[in-house]
């Protein structure tokens, strides 16, 4: 194998960059390592197919800084995991799910834990490779056939020629003294490093192709398009149905949205009871409350409450037409404003109850229609309260219950 690897070195000088000594057992190399270290060498190494116990002490290797790298990576990983979850779920787009707190520590721990382990592991693995300066694919030792046994069953010491104490003869002698079976020089060929020309072209083409994706992205972000985006997987995005605002040529009026057939009545909308729904009995306005309305305190309370909500804004709490809207309009000197009616006097007092009902339902003059807002029962309740207001403004002392008269007099 190494034969085919050896290029013709006749044109280039070879020089010795170190010595290689082979040993057969771990004990032998351990003892030799002590001797080499005691002799004062610093640029040397031992090689073995497995880590030999005690070699760290023999060579004087100090504990590596790797655990600290791993710790730092772990802390960073944990903090990042936690920060990511907080920022993404609680800050940037608060994600409300099943009432759990946005940043809920128990639920955020699993991912934080995994992130810690992941980054610590990267620290251990890449830290180890980095500190060992691996990959280092080329090494003059690989030219030696002898050295191939370093990963098999033999042990080696290499001493670098750059060590200040290195002397080819003396160092060889020392290694033989320690019991090395073989001592070989390690040779290196000083060939100038040249990148083959094809690689230049390959690199150029690759770089050009690598520029294309970012260029496309930049171009796309800097420009606008009139066509819709490409939609590769349609799913159920386009369906054969007519949506409300679309045209539909099947119909004469071309509209997709259709009205119900004339005369269609929704459930619960068949209002046949004229008295209740329109305040009309026969051809005239109703003069009494319909049967569905029970005249009692409950209806009165409801009516009062509803009156305060809907009517008092204009007609005032007492029905005197001095509601806040009116006062405001006067203050602003609204030119088109017509004062709200006084409910307990004048024409309003004379009107039959059915006509009042009609007024609430459809509005009159400036007053809008309250029919859509107020359910039918509530309108009658309001009217009950209005009657009470009318009675209260036109009452005599005899109308007051006996026990309350004293307070008024």
């Amino acid at each position, binding site marked *: 194998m190494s034969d085919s690897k050896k290029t013709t070195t006749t044109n280039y000088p070879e020089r010795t960059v170190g010595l290689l000594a082979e040993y057969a057992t771990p004990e032998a190399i351990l003892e030799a390592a002590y001797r080499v270290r005691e002799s004062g060498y610093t640029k040397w190494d031992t090689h073995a197919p497995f880590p030999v116990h005690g070699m760290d002490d023999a060579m004087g290797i100090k504990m590596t800084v790797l655990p600290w790298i791993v710790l730092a990576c772990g802390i960073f990983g944990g903090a990042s995991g936690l920060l990511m979850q907080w920022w*993404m779920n609680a800050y940037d787009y608060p994600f409300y*799910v099943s009432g759990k707190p946005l940043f809920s520590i128990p639920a955020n721990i699993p991912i934080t834990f*995994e992130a810690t382990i992941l980054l610590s592991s990267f620290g*251990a693995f890449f830290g180890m490779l980095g500190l060992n300066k691996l990959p280092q694919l080329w090494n003059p030792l690989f030219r030696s056939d002898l050295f*191939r046994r370093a*990963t098999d069953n033999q042990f080696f010491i290499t001493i670098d020629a750059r060590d200040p104490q290195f002397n080819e003869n003396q160092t060889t002698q020392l290694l033989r003294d320690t019991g090395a079976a073989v001592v070989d020089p390690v040779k290196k060929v000083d060939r100038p490093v040249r990148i083959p020309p094809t690689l230049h072209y390959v690199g150029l083409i690759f770089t050009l192709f690598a520029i294309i994706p970012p260029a496309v992205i930049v171009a796309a972000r800097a420009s606008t398009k009139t066509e819709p985006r490409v939609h590769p997987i349609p799913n159920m995005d386009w369906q054969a149905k007519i949506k409300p605002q679309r045209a539909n040529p099947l119909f004469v009026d071309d509209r997709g949205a259709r009205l119900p057939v004339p005369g269609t009545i929704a459930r619960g909308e068949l209002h046949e009871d004229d008295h209740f729904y329109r305040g009309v009995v026969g051809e005239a306005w109703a003069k009494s409350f319909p049967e569905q309305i029970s005249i009692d305190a409950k209806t009165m309370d409801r009516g009062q409450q509803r009156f305060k909500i809907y009517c008092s804004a204009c007609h005032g709490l007492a029905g005197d037409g001095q509601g806040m809207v009116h006062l405001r309009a006067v203050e602003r000197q609204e030119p088109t404003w017509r004062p709200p009616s006084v409910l307990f006097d004048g024409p309003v007092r004379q009107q039959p109850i059915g006509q009042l009902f009609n007024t609430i339902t459809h509005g009159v003059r400036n007053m809008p229609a309250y029919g859509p807002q107020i359910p039918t029962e509530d309108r009658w309740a309001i009217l009950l309260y209005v009657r009470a207001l009318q009675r209260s403004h036109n009452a005599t002392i005899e109308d007051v219950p006996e026990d309350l008269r004293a307070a008024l007099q």
Partner: protein
Amino acid sequence: MSDKQNTVDDPTRRPPLVTGEHDMADVTDIISRVVEMPPPSLAWKIAITITSLLTLNLGALIGYLVWTGVGVWGNRSPTMWGWPIVNFVFWIGIGHAGTLISAVLFLFRQRWRTSINRAAEAMTLFAVVCAGMYPGIHIGRVWVAYWLFPIPNQMSIWPQFRSPLLWDMVAISTYGTVSLMFWYMGLIPDLATLRDRATTKVRYFVYGLLALGWTGSNRHWHRYERAYLLLAALATPLVLSVHSIVSFHFAVAQVVGWHSTIFPPYFVAGAIFGGFAMVLFLLIPAREFFGLKDIVTMRHIENMNKILLVTGSIVGYSYAMEFFISWYSGSLYERFAFINRALGPYSWAYATMIFCNVLSPQVFWNKSARTNLWVSWIVSILVTIGMWFERFVIIVTSLARDYLPSSWGYFKPTWVDVMMFAGTFGLFLTLFLLFCRFLPMVALSEVKGIMPHGEDADGGHPQPRPPQPIEPSTAEA
């Protein structure tokens, strides 16, 4: 040489872990021969043909699934989780044995792990591949799977990190990545061995590239050993957390029979149990076919069977605890859930599970059963089946009959479920066969490290002595 030679329990000495009077060069030869043997044996060729066909079937079915939709599976109301989740948990569980052997047994200084850790770690990676496929394809719209990752998307929304499904995604990816790094790191010195023995240019180039220029330098070994220890110390809580997070899928829910606090350690023990069964299932034939009997010895088989018994007992303990507490809780639903498992429509699955998981490993109380290859292999198959059924019983019975009787149903798998699962076995075994063919199945450098050399009778190592002062140089220049 008797196979059982190193299974004798003699407290006065540690049994040899490499039998047959081999030295380091022999060990290198035995393992490397498998990789360097051209052409591969007929048995290997037949095996890989079958497994490749199964893998192709898997690919085709995945295509069919993505094209047609998740309805091709048996997942129906009320069992919205069916075989895909069962298979996922099954495969992930199997992967855990590899990490246990590599990391946990390393921390406990169990030297016998060195013969099996390489193959087990490889098995972990392939199991993770098979497992990780399922979450990827079961989501329905596979093309928007990127929404699971914290990368900006068109809705400016981020993943829901408080969900067990996201925890799972992070945990599985972390587990796969760390296992890959750990496995690769262990491979580096052995790839260097293969590089140095390479006889063809292609082999020299590929193994050389992958070996990163490893020279066996002790300065490198020092950092390597420290990194190995750190990765082992990290991988241990990792393996516990990954299967705990998988168990959270079920345990954080309010489904009866799922919501049980013992799930995390129970699932982890079950995973190791199922994983060791798979390691035995693979290695017992492998050591025969690849001539590894002196390295993966009967003592290794026996130790693995003991671990099978221990983890099986932990699983049995968990069954007992769940059963007792379900009664003790006084909850009508809890009590019903466990009676339903044993006596309901899936009692056949429950019986299989109990027989395979609780009863079959009990043979290993007996020493001759522990040291019998056929018994070991058959029990490993039964345990693998049993562990699949355990996940099936947990998932399907609790969903098929939960709180509201009007919602009860019966789950049936479809042919796609079954064939896809078979396909994952094809994928797993194809990858494993390729691994056997191209990479060293045993951790060469680690096995050499535990072989006897220079150890005294007590197993102690040469003690360091303080360095002596440097003698003045007397040699001539």
